[in-house]
């Protein structure tokens, strides 16, 4: 199943740890699925910048396969970040809005997500709400994902090096599809997201020193 084949909802919520780049890669891997042109508005509140850093232009360009202009808003708190997201969602010239909010601030409640969802639906600009280090609260987002890194594929040239990045993507709440858990990876050549059923056992031929996905899940 590829995510790009289906129409993306206006708001998608992704929960992840702030010390993990998986969610960022997961979001960027699906950015072009709507085929929109224009810059990306990237809104971060202060804590998410402090915990997870800022987007790196070169890395983003590598994932997207081209230079996409970034418009970055460093909001001082979640309320300001939500306001900036709402303003951005009014502007149809943007290709996407990525909003990062750390934790569970009071401003980000059900009403706030409803406002965001209505604006996104009106202008057609997709919103990716990246919530780091947060418990899943109430939200109107049709799709809600929980992301974590998984051990990467083997590097074709260097056995010691990490290869293509895999993520454990869990769709824990969805109005459009049945929830489930997958191992996701980004197909850079086709620029789409590949979702595969997770392996129950480790890859064949791997020694005991490499934990399988299940062990890694418990190890955190």
């Amino acid at each position: 199943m590829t995510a790009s084949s289906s129409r993306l909802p206006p708001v998608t919520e992704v929960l992840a740890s702030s010390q993990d780049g998986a969610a960022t890669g997961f979001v960027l891997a699906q950015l072009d699925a709507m085929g929109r042109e224009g810059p990306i508005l990237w809104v971060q509140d202060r804590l998410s910048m402090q915990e997870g850093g800022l987007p790196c232009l070169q890395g983003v360009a590598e994932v997207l396969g081209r230079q996409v202009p970034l418009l970055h808003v460093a909001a001082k708190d979640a309320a300001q970040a939500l306001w900036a997201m709402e303003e951005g969602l009014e502007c149809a010239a943007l290709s996407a809005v990525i909003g990062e909010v750390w934790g569970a601030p009071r401003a980000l409640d059900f009403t706030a997500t409803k406002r965001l969802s209505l604006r996104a639906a009106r202008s057609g600009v997709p919103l990716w709400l990246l919530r780091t280090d947060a418990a899943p609260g109430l939200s109107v987002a049709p799709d809600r994902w929980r992301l974590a890194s998984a051990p990467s594929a083997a590097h074709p040239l260097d056995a010691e090096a990490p290869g293509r990045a895999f993520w454990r993507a869990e769709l824990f709440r969805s109005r459009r599809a049945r929830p489930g858990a997958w191992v996701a990876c980004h197909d850079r050549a086709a620029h789409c997201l590949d979702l595969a059923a997770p392996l129950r056992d480790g890859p064949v031929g791997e020694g005991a020193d490499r934990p399988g996905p299940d062990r890694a899940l418990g190890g955190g």
Partner: protein
Amino acid sequence: MARWERGRTAPAPTAPWEEAESGLDADAPVVLAAEGRHGPVIHAVSEAAARAGASVGARVVDARAIAPELVVQPADLPGDAAALTRLAHWARRWCPWSATDGADGLVLDTTGAAHLWGGEAAMLADMEARLAALGQAARLAAAHTHGAAWALARHGDPREIGTSDALRARLAMLPVAALRLDGQTRLTLRRLGLKRVGDLMALPRAALDRRFGRDGTALATPLRRLDQALGHLPEPVVSPPPPHRFRTVQRLPEPVMDPQPWLAGLFQTLCADLVRQGHGAREIRLELYRIDGQASLFQAVTARATRDAGHLHRLLERRFESLDAGFGFDTLALEATRTEAQTGAQAALDGSDGAEVALATLIDRLTGRVGAAVRSPDPRASHLPERAERWSPARAVPVARPFSGPAAEGRGSVPVAGDDASRRRQPGFAAPPLPVGPVPAGSRPPDARGPHPAPRAPAEGPRLAVVAAAGKDSARRDPSSAAGAGGPGRARPMQAPSDRLAPGGLGGGGLVAPARARPLRLLRAPERIEVLYAVPEGPPIRFRWRRRPFLIRRHQGPERISPEWWQAPATARLRDYYKVEVADGARYWLFREGVAGDGRGGAPDWFLHGLFA
């Protein structure tokens, strides 16, 4: 009676900007050449060039035959004229009526204004000082008529003031060239043996009129000029109107506590004015004058020239929350303090504006609330990850460009040397991916905007006087140059990395090091971590970050990045970057700063710098 004041501007031989722009020293024999009928003609000369034998009006080839070491630069006559016009407007600080006079002079009607400056002598001294502060050497004179002031400024004593009773006698002593005559007339007068103005005065008027006014069309006959200088003929000065000021003022009959109902009309009036003049506002200022003499000031800047009243109004709307009305406002003034020429743009068929307009509007709104925190990263040629992108205030960003290959492709492993200042000027997303090689100092990208005066040299004559005004004024007034990097950046398509087979690479003409991946996120500052690693230069095995232990399963590296020696201090240490994957799968970017025994500190430190997907 009108008092005419006339200044002739002449260059300061050692003005600082000349050296900065031309790169020539003040002693260089520089001449400025303009196109003449038979090839280039010298328009202005520097002191050294004058000593070498060059003179104004001579042909460049002749001057070069005399002095082969002459440095010839092209003259910028339209630029000079524009700068002189600006200087004429600036000179209205002394009196309200001023105009340019020829290619190298200004004329000011100081009637009734001199006493404000403490008399004519004090005013002339003030003018000289202020012009000198601008880098202009000026010759000044004041007299009752335009013609007399012209003559005294060029042929009289410094800061001479002509009095009405002695004017006739003073003019009689001056050469006939002081009468603003053309070359042919001067030649004729010289052949007739008439060298002084007094010689002309002694002749009967009828004879002069017959000799020089025969065709009846010439305005600059000696007789007419003499009458104008003596005040027998009027000679009005046409003063150009000042630059249009986009300002609307609303005076209210009664003070109001809430000025907002009046603002919509104020914005409409301003925008209608902008439309009439074909301009768009880049910066607006709203002044609210309270009845007790206090004033509140609100300013907003826009990312792009606009004359949309609703948009401009919204930019200021949020500021009124903290407005202190006191006893009420009685005067509201709205001014566009910075404008740009803006032609009409056609809206799309559905009535919406283009993507660029929508984007600029969004940036304005965000900047109005969040301030300088709205930024966008520009790629820059640097190997240090934190320097490879420059965060600059957001502007109307160009639409996406096709991107050829990953950004890291074609990245060599040699730090790029070059003049950082020249690269900083590259606007927008224009920077080519990476290796550029040394950039010659002073080189500009082909798409650099704004007026770029040709290299100037210290020279003598009107030419440089005007340059001074151009240099200073354009920096202050010209909105397009002031916008500079702030304007909408024009993007060049990314250059395809063609130097993958770089000469002198690995094994002589071999492959440059393969492309290195860059993380998706960079921490704001690298965070120090405790690392267990194989000394002295082995890979990391486990590390502790934010009080959490991580066991490294796989690693890739090191990628060694040297400090940029041309700007880092000598004690900066190199970095060995590793991409590591920890036990639960997260991928990080670590680096070891320095190697043991490099003489730049003790044991190397480890840092975590970025997060991979």
